[in-house]
């Protein structure tokens, strides 16, 4: 639960004091209207990389829209992230060619190795795991990318060493 005292809602002042300057700059672009929930969420995520609880609450207070509504919208759309992305982003290609070449096994191996599901970030913030439809490298299927690097013709047994390499590089 986020610790927050409710002075603001009772006086309806929507106090923006103590807010980070970046956030205030974003808020200034938008009228205090319900329909601005999504554009504000997008801008705040673009600035900070994700939507923190504190920022979601600030958005709700600024727009005078209940936090429950803002949280509902933020969890509804796939484009919004409520946790920061990991330092390294692993993308597993689940396109047709990679699927035929066994990408599911690679995904499952990564999930068990990192102890997270696709779409999640490890607790230490080192890795985020995502699936993508095609990375345009079907000739080396099955393929995964880690940050900007491509790893093709991969087998599930290669995954452990690959993850370790990135862990060690930190």
């Amino acid at each position, binding site marked *: *639960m986020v*610790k927050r005292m409710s002075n603001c809602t*009772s*006086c309806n002042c929507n106090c923006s004091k103590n807010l980070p300057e970046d956030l205030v700059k974003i808020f200034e672009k938008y009228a205090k209207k319900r329909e601005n929930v999504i554009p504000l969420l997008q801008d705040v995520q673009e600035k900070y990389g994700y939507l923190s609880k504190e920022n979601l609450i600030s958005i709700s207070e600024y727009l005078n829209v209940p*936090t*429950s509504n803002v*949280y509902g919208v933020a969890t509804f759309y796939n484009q919004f992230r409520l946790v920061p992305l990991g330092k390294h982003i692993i993308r597993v290609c689940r396109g047709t060619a990679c699927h035929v070449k066994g990408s599911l096994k690679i995904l499952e191996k990564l999930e068990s190795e990192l102890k997270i599901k696709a779409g999640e970030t490890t607790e230490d913030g080192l890795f985020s795991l995502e699936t993508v439809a095609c990375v345009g490298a079907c000739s080396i299927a099955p393929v995964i990318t880690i940050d900007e690097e491509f790893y093709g013709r991969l087998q599930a047994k290669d995954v452990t060493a690959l993850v370790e390499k990135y862990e060690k590089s930190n």
Partner: protein
Amino acid sequence: METLNIVDQKVNININGDNVSVSKGTTILEAANQSGINIPTLCHLKKCTPTGACRICVVEVEGARTLVASCTNPVAEGMKIKTHSNRVIDARKTILELMIANHPMDCLKCDRSGFCSLQSLSEEYGITEVPYQGKKRHNPIDLSSPSIVRDADKCILCGKCVKVCEQIQTVNAIEFTKRGFESVVAPSFDCSLGESNCINCGQCIMVCPTGALTEKGAIEDVRAALKDPAKVVVVQPAPAIRVTIGEAMGMEPGAISTGKMVTALKKLGFNQVFDTDFAADLTIMEEGSELVHRVTNNGVLPLMSSCSPGWIKFVEHFYPSLIPNLSTCKSPHQMLGAVIKSYWAKKAGVDPKDIYVVSIMPCTAKKFEAQRPELENDGLRDVDAVLTTRELTKLFKTSGINFSKLEETDFDSPLGLASGAGDIFAASGGVMEAALRSAYFLITGEELENIDFTGVRGLDGVKEATVNVKGLDVKIAVASSLGQARKLMDKVVSGEADYHFIEIMTCAGGCIAGGGQPLNTDIDRIKARLKSIYAIDAKKELRKSHKNADVQKLYEEFLGKPLSEVSHKLLHTHYHQRELS
């Protein structure tokens, strides 16, 4: 005027072969209901925005490409509607089968069994097998709240709880979160209901069509206390119980069953059956004196009633700047608990530690209230357990009580005598009317002749009045439901309103429509209960709290006078600001 024409405009339609004429803007669902046709609904909630979420109300409209949801579609001129064609019935059956496919289907051990809309529709539509193998959800059951249990696996995502919390109560404790199969109605940020802004009113339980939202039960605690020979178990039913327990036990809605209820409670083995209405009279003495004191000493005004614990938590979360306006009086059942464990314990020669006080309440928020740390005296809880009307019904049924056949018994003395003013606490406006009957005496020392303040009665959202007390215009306001309360509070905060006294009830209509009352409560039942409550009052000789001889005796023998030191210790409390989650 053009607008007047629109109001009068009629639309001619044909429903199931009958030509009918209905007002423009009527939905197909409403038009069918007006024609005596029942269309099943699971997500429809009167006074709230229709969403067409559950699809069970679909009907066939001639010329329409698909079946349409009757709750969201308004009628149009010449529309031909079939509400129960084979196509419609087959579609409803499929919709039900799909809902059930994801459902735990544990009806035998579900708290809602017998009152579940999904269960009864399945029965109506003859569903005996489920053709689809649906994925099951495995959300943890949220037991964090002292009042409400949330089992998301049983939720069919109809959204009625969200609507009532958002649109009627304006609390916004829960909302649809995530999407698709992952969708779950929950508080924000994965926090539990106990940590959320939830004010425990239980109106979400009242509208839930399944067992996803139920009360936190205390039946087993009470049964254990009743079995314990070392415990002196004392019970007190709230004002509203006497007009709903009969209904819950199979009598007609609004049946006045005070005497039968006392008999039944005695049969369960309670040592003493006292009346919360006695403490309602006591509350009037304290709160009335508080009002007089504030008015004559430039105290914080408006004074706001403190009987409804959902409302108290609402102020603590949303209007902390108005906490000083709240009456410091504990709610009646908490007062009675404190009096039982002090005054009565001494009188009866019982060690207060051996006393177990059970309150029968129309309310789930009372369960939360009874657990508030500040509501105790010398380390003993004022109230040990709270049962709702529904739980008492179960307890009566388990104990084989044939309620309607019971003889009538009086409450035990000396905490069982109540005035009509105490009885009407059950309805919105009742606390105000009771207070006015006595405040006049407390201010002027004279008795009021006409004591029926009909202006504050009834089910309207906000009621206002000005009462002249010997030259002083006392301005009052009464509101029920927190949405209505919020409107009033915004006026108080802005300084637009200059009332002396405000009564707020958390639930629309007051305790007769509380979140602990029998399920499937509709407006006709609430009206019947309302009528009965005022009938109880009208029939009594004793109709003013300050005339209650046993309350007078309590002051003479123990408390001294209202707002005395003993009163403050036992009958008053304090509140604190709460965070918003």
